[in-house]
């Protein structure tokens, strides 16, 4: 589509767009699941708006929003100037007037440019003067794509530390769909970390309509096991599952818990798996120090102390920017090999 086109502003109804009937299961890529969730909410709720750089006519840097401006018009899919701080502030202002803006950061790395609007304003209004700010910020994050230090960041811990925000990080197309819808409907500011690496590399079943909703704050047990729990999120869920399958062949029984929501953490699920296996391995791409893994470890060390049969172990991105060159990025990024080695050590403890 080009800028010359006459963008219509009408709202298409569900029936017209040939969606799957409610409840039917479709195979979608992770990226398609995000797009379809946006479409679903745009169709369902006229208060939902999309805001972002290059998200309309261009369809977004990753084409997540492709086709949406044609379908919903430029009143609802709004191409903005390159100005993250004003964009997030503006989204909050819109939310004060009944809208449910979904803001796309072109990369999660640029969320720091709008930081004040998120941590100082969005996060505090309800506590201070009872005003909800229902905005969703989509942050395409994480690495593995040879994109270097400014297009590979996993900076979720900044927001997990900040009260007043919610943070989610789906690992599957079904969760990408279900968590995005829940995020948009939540009356609080939610940062939605989507994993660029999975956009087109991961396909999976997505239940359409309301049946596919995933509540915020609920982890998912991806695999049951007895000897060791891997607690993780995002792309690392798949690495963890590969390790679990591999170790099963070696006779081990590994549980994999996908956190899905990073704030608020599903403390019950975390403590339950720690109690069950007594050995916990936490995995994430984000830098190790003060990452989400530290909080999970601290929580377990405080509240499931009695259950532990081995040191709570973390496999995380080392404390460096994410380097570009393939050998360096591979050395940096946790993967099945690194996870397996740590799991092995913990199993033998």
């Amino acid at each position: 589509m080009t800028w010359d086109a006459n963008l219509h502003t009408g709202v298409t109804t569900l029936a017209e767009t040939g969606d799957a009937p409610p409840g039917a299961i479709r195979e979608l890529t992770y990226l398609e699941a995000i797009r379809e969730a946006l479409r679903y909410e745009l169709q369902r709720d006229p208060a939902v708006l999309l805001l972002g750089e290059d998200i309309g006519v261009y369809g977004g840097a990753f084409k997540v929003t492709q086709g949406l401006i044609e379908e919903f018009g430029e009143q609802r899919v709004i191409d903005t100037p390159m100005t993250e701080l004003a964009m997030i502030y503006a989204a909050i202002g819109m939310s004060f007037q009944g809208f449910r803006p979904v803001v796309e950061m072109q990369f999660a790395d640029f969320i720091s440019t709008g930081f004040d609007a998120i941590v100082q304003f969005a996060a505090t209004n309800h506590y201070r003067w009872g005003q909800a700010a229902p905005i969703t910020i989509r942050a395409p994050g994480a690495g593995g794509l040879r994109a270097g230090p400014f297009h590979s960041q996993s900076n979720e811990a900044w927001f997990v530390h900040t009260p007043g925000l919610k943070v989610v990080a789906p690992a599957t197309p079904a969760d990408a769909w279900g968590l995005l819808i829940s995020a948009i409907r939540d009356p609080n500011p939610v940062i939605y970390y989507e994993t660029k690496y999975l956009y087109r590399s991961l396909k999976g079943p997505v239940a359409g309509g309301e049946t596919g909703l995933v509540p915020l704050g609920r982890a998912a047990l991806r695999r049951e096991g007895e000897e060791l729990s891997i607690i993780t999120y995002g792309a690392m869920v798949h690495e963890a599952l590969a390790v679990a399958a591999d170790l099963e062949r070696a006779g081990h029984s590994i549980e994999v818990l996908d956190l899905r929501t990073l704030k608020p953490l599903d403390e019950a699920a975390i403590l339950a798996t720690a109690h069950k296996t007594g050995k916990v391995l936490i995995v994430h791409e984000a830098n190790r120090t003060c990452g989400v893994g530290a909080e999970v470890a601290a929580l377990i060390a405080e509240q499931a102390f009695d259950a532990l049969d081995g040191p709570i172990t973390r496999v995380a991105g080392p404390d460096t920017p994410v380097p570009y060159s393939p050998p360096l990025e591979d050395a940096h990024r946790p993967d099945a090999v690194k996870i397996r080695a740590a799991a092995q050590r913990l199993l033998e403890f």
Partner: protein
Amino acid sequence: MELPAELLTRAHYWMRLTRALDERGAFLHKQSKIVGGYFSQIGHEAISVAAGLALGPDDVAAPMHRDLGTYLVRGLHPRRILAQFLGRATGVSRGRDANLHGMGDLSLGLIGFISHLPASTGVIAGVAHAFKLKGEPRVAMAFFGDGGASQGLAHEALNWASVFQLPMVVICENNQYAYSTPLARQMRIEHIADRAAGYGIPGVIVDGNDFCAVYQAVTQAVERARAGGGPTLIECKTMRMRGHAIHDNMAYVPKDLLETWAQRDPIARIEAVLRERGLLDDAALAALLERIDHELDEAQAYAEASPYPDPSEVTQGVYAD
């Protein structure tokens, strides 16, 4: 154009109330009943009251720390304001936020402000954007100071409002100082309004101590915005007549500058206009001041009698549900 008598009389009441409430707050601070900081707005009454009065009931404003008059004009009762200053459960922020921060109430079209200046400009761009998207004939108003003008957000929000041609009015309160920093160290231009041209929007300069001038300029901008004409930046020239906050003795401000501006006191000026037009005499003024004093006595009594928030509720309300 002469403003209607009724409007002037009303404005006079609000300006006097604003000043009296401000002085009451300073007094309570001196008595150590208000702990922490306290910001005086003396000298800003014409701006905050005129801006408030130029808005309609469905419009929305995001005032800042020297816009006490705007809060009052939009209907925030002195009771709730004094209870806020005293950290009581009945204060606007229920004891959560300090002095003029967080004094928001959307039922009155007021957004609670945060320290990070000029946040109001950003959020108001979004409010104005919402009005435009909904096709509602409503206007959103932001305030920022000569200090706030240096922040990137002022630039981003003005550009945003311009690109989307939003119904937004931005009041720049140029009171010559940002804390201790004089205008000439904040920027190397004389008129902040000159920056409007960089966004392709009108920039208006007005005497911020002249109620009538501010009212007319803001009314025009509000009408323009409401009619779809887009945003306006209005620079009100004024002077901060007290320290940055109550602890600041302003040693850095030349005495003669303060004296010059004392001659231009906005309340004295509106009173001169009222007297000239036969709308005020000594007796009427005395009666008004007494009425205001009574109102504030009652408000103070309410605030002081109000309970503190229950400490067991400290973690409540972080999230909406």
